[in-house]
């Protein structure tokens, strides 16, 4: 949340938002702990092993999952590797005139990465091809397509949805012209994800804590804190950002609200089907 890239926001605009927050509501009529409409579409990237695009309000994030073959780490010879990367597509915002913000993209990738990594979401042994020799490296690549607030929660939903849609090829070794190849058998298998960790981010404006800010709310917020929760309501990662600070009381209250909101988001991932636009 680098305010240096923000559009100038008039103090009038700012005061109006604060006024509403005092009254417990927001510019689009939502409550402080209410999300915009969430739409999930998966499998639309035909050359990826898994993909999803998620809209929260006007924010759009596309995620594609690809694999590569690599050598396992010596201390986990039968486990594959998962890695996250994020790109802020320059068309996503008029604020990206002089280039999309690198720092924000790195942070977005790391927050999503942590959510996936520490929830034990994926049995990494499912990514093993030949123990000690060859494993799948999964690339979860996040493209921020339309930048209208709350990228973290959107990316988190998109990543988990894309992983849910993954179909990995079964491979067998074939020798052709004295060279050994890994040849797809034609069959595929899913990652058997049985948890849907989601991220809930709280933005602090004055002394109000809100979820799912739209772009202007995001730009005037002093600080934010993201909680990733698994299906048991356990916190698997936290990330604070922004120039503002939080008291212990604010943090504990946010954690409790996150625990209340998580099941709704998890339900969205569980129930998505491929029907958004037909394109």
């Amino acid at each position, binding site marked *: 949340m680098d305010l240096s890239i923000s559009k100038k926001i008039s103090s009038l605009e700012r005061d109006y938002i604060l006024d509403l927050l005092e009254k417990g509501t927001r510019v689009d009529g939502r409550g402080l702990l209410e999300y915009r409409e969430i739409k999930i579409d998966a499998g*639309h*990237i*035909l*050359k*990826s092993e898994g*993909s999803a695009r998620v809209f929260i309000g*006007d924010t*759009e994030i*596309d995620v*594609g*999952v*690809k*694999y*590569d*073959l690599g050598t396992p780490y010596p201390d986990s010879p039968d486990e594959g590797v998962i890695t996250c*990367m994020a*790109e802020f*597509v*320059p*068309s*996503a*915002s*008029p604020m990206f*005139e*002089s*280039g999309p913000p690198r720092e924000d993209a790195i942070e977005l990738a790391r927050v999503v990465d942590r959510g996936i990594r520490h929830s034990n979401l994926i049995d990494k042994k499912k990514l093993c091809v030949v123990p000690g*020799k*060859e494993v799948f490296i999964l*690339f979860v*690549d996040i*493209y921020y*397509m*339309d*930048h*209208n607030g709350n990228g973290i929660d959107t990316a988190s939903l998109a990543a988990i949805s894309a992983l849910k849609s993954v179909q990995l090829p079964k*491979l067998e*070794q*074939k020798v*052709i012209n004295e*060279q*050994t*190849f*890994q*040849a*797809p058998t034609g069959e595929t298998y899913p990652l058997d994800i049985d948890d849907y960790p989601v991220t809930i981010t709280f933005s602090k404006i004055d002394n109000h804590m809100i979820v799912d800010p739209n772009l202007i709310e995001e730009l005037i917020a002093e600080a934010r804190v993201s909680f990733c929760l698994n299906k048991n309501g356990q916190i698997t990662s936290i990330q604070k950002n922004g120039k503002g600070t939080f008291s212990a009381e604010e943090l504990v209250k946010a954690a409790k609200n996150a625990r209340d909101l998580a099941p709704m988001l998890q339900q969205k991932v569980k129930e998505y089907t491929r029907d958004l636009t037909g*394109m």
Partner: protein
Amino acid sequence: MPLLPESLPETIFKDDGTRLDGRKFNELRDLHIEVGVLKNADGSALVCHGKNRIIAGAYGPREVHPRHLAKSDTGILQISYRMATFSVGERKSPVPGRREKEISMVVGKAIEPVLFLEQYPNTTIDVFITVLTADGGTRCASVTAAACAIADMGIPMKDLVAGVAVGKIANRIILDVSDKEDKWEKGGATDMPVAVMVNQKQYSLLQLDGSITVEQFEEMLDLVFEGGKLVYEKQKEALRRKYSTEDVGR
């Protein structure tokens, strides 16, 4: 251990003379165009051409960054063509490659002739093209998308620009070569991507790799112009759907 490369089909034309995907020699792949798909961009377009899935977002005319690129006597057009890491079979490095820079340049040269850039001194029109899925002919589909995104901004244009390719495969001249058709001759195929200004009857992009006679070149120019007209119709339709006016792109 490397992954085994995909194997190729034995024939490229069916017994009835149609192509692998059922098209006749002068038919386009499925082409779907939609404009206004991005909320923040001043103009935008989604082009689904075959399995290609390409989004273009356009901004401007606006201030140039970095400023030293600005020109006091004319506006500039800056195209950024980028392939998503997951757009191709083997994951693409996120670092922009030489090919992406070349296609950015090529698309820019294809679009520039239809703009009145000299009317916007010191400014830039930026078009960002993101290839989400690539399936052969992305440079042509990107021209199509970029032209629509700019038209969606509402600035005056001399003409639309339609991207389309013609090729010679197994010694037959065919329109809109797909990825599979292109690979079939193992680099021996002839491919000629062009950008056509349909109303002006001008070519703003022309490339060819392969091997043809001067006579075949004439024949290919004829066929690809017909293809350009088909793309142009789809572009107009998409803009009309959003704006419900008839004379877009003139």
